[in-house]
């Protein structure tokens, strides 16, 4: 009896110590993310590559529902049950997490020096001292078009705004295709693929964006109202009942070959490649007059940081350094064409459509979305209001001037530099 007990104790002690040893060897890092879309890419390509290079560290990619990500992540961080690595939204959402002490400073991280200041700007404290997320990718706006349809109708790619509307008019007259696939039901399409897509050409990219932040320009200035006026003209070229058309509806309309042009973000590329059975091309937002400098929205969109309360900071840093490496950049950019790496090291892209998008970086000036930095810190929230205003303007229920005035009044109500 006694010896049995002793043996049992010994055995369980042995098992326990074995388990302990195994734990000491293998650390599992959990990544919080909103990118359900990428689950298989992480599981099949990225994680195996990392684990092969770093034995002893296991990685678990655990995405939650994209729409609930912010709310879920905040709750988990506050209660202390969040994962070791946190996928970061750009600008204030992540800055707030850093300020509350949930994200660790990465100022000392070796890999951060692979990134330019512009790349880091979306995930750094206002004083520029403490970066807190490793930039992963940016997305570029433009228009994707159905090459077959363009050939069939004898259309060429428009470069100026007049050409653009002439093309739309021709497609409309012909009647085979819906000229442009966009709806206003989900609102963000109108703001992101509409206003923020074509806007930089009017407010001259960074120049206008920074002037708005410093208070030198206002949203009622011509440069900021003009894009709304152009958007209002889109209405005639959208499909019937576009008011109730959702974002997935737009995607399907285009990939099923029913619409000729799709106001896009480069993130669509991988999805469209698998779904469309025609050839696709892309063109940047048309400029006002031939020969004008073109501006594109090349928006810093996704990064990854470290939970300040992780139990495995060393392993997490190892992972982040790997994310900052050219190896990851090339792996990620080619697995997810349309998410362009932000590291300074140039990356070979294989996808032709992605190559087209990234080539605009050479000939046009890059900027980011105008509402993202600083201007959406207050109430009313400028980004959310811009969704609403863009949808209203396209539907024709608000004039461009009224919409601009409403946005400016909202901004003035809380943003000091705009108070004059």
């Amino acid at each position, binding site marked *: 009896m006694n010896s049995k007990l002793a043996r049992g104790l010994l055995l369980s002690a042995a098992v326990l110590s074995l388990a302990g040893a195994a734990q000491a060897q293998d650390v599992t890092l959990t990544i919080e993310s909103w990118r359900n879309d990428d689950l298989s890419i992480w599981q099949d390509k990225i994680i195996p590559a990392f684990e092969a290079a770093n034995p002893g560290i296991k990685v678990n990619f655990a995405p939650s529902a994209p*729409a609930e990500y*912010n*709310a879920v992540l*905040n709750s988990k961080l506050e209660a202390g049950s969040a994962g070791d690595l946190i996928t970061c939204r750009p*600008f*204030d*959402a992540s800055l*707030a997490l850093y*300020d*509350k002490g949930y994200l660790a400073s990465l100022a000392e991280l070796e890999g951060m020096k692979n990134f330019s200041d512009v790349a880091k700007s979306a995930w750094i404290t206002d004083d520029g001292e403490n970066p807190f997320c490793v930039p992963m990718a940016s997305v570029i706006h433009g228009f994707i078009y159905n090459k077959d349809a363009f050939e069939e109708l004898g259309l060429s790619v428009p470069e100026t705004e007049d050409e653009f509307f002439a093309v739309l008019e021709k497609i409309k007259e012909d009647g085979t295709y819906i000229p442009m696939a966009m*709806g*206003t*039901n*989900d*609102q*963000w399409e109108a703001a992101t693929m509409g206003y923020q897509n074509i806007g930089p050409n009017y407010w001259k990219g960074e120049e206008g964006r920074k002037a708005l932040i410093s208070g030198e320009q206002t949203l009622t200035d011509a440069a900021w109202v003009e894009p709304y006026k152009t958007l209002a003209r889109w209405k005639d070229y959208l*499909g*019937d*009942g*576009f*008011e*109730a*058309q*959702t974002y997935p*509806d737009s995607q399907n*309309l285009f990939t099923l070959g029913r619409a000729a042009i799709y106001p896009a973000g480069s993130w669509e590329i991988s999805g469209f490649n698998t779904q469309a059975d025609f050839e696709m091309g892309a063109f940047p937002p048309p400029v006002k007059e031939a020969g004008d400098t073109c501006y594109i929205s090349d928006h810093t969109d996704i990064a990854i940081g470290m939970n300040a309360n992780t139990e495995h900071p060393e392993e997490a840093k190892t992972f982040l350094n790997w994310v900052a490496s050219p190896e990851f950049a090339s792996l990620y950019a080619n697995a997810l064409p349309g998410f362009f790496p932000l590291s300074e090291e140039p990356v070979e892209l294989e996808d032709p459509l992605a190559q087209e998008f990234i080539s605009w970086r050479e000939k046009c000036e890059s900027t980011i979305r105008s*509402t*993202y930095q600083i201007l*959406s*810190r207050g*109430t*009313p*929230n*400028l*980004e*959310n209001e811009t*969704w*609403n205003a863009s*949808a*209203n303007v396209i*539907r024709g*229920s*608000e004039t461009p001037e009224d919409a601009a005035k409403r946005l400016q009044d*909202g901004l003035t*109500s809380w943003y000091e530099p705009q108070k004059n």
Partner: protein
Amino acid sequence: MTVSSPRMPVRWHIGVFLAPAVLVYTAIMVLPLFGTLQLSFFRVVDGRDVFVGLDNFRTLLGDPRWSASFWNALGNNFWFFLIHMAVQNPIGILLAALLSNPRLRMRAFYRTAIFVPTILSFVIVGFGWKLILSPIWGVAPSILDAVGLKSLFAPWLGKEEYALTTLGLISVWQFVGIPMMLIYAALLSIPDEILEAAECDGITGMSQFWKIKLPLILPSIGIISILTFVGNFNAFDLIYAAQGALAGPNYATDILGTFLYRTFFGFQLQIGDPNMGSAIASIMFLIILMGVCIYLFGIQTRLRRYQF
């Protein structure tokens, strides 16, 4: 020995009956919720919670930016509720009355079929109805075309004047099973003797329903009314699934639930504001509490109940 005897010392069984429910409910629901609601008296200043009394409520009702959203949401919510009272509950009662006829064939089939929408998840309801009502994929337009009413078609969910009513009707479609089932249970518990006695007196059919059954199920109609009220003023998921957190077009479908969610948890670039969010939640709570108290103390106590 009567229960209400004043000499009865300690009636332990009352405590035993109440304890499990009260304990679980208090620990996991009441304490966390009131912990959250008290945030409405605080505001974050320089990273610390500072007690500000009723300031948040003053902002919510006094600052035109907040109050416009609030009154819009409240008004929409009342419309949403009216649609349910005027459409969902009468249909529910009618269906239950028809189903409770013991001689009706295929009752089990109808009862199950009509209840199916109620068990669907909001993701499916949102997707299905958007697909059907979509102007692009053509289900609703072709159905209307088949009956010669194509001209009536509009992109309802995208129009400010129709969107909320459309969503209200979708919600009615989804939840009509709830009043149906509750009334059905109430109708079934009416003893046969009463109905037989009525039949002997020549009261049958419609008049039997109006004169005998309806008075007997009034308490249940009271319950479904108050449950509809509570449910509608807490509603959130359907609008969120169909129109997103910004409740478009142009906030035409914004109800208190979506307004609260957007404020409390934040949305997109808007960072969650638990303090203002709690203020909204507290006001919603007071509105619902008032409704429930009117029901509990004003209506319920006056309803005559029959014991069978």
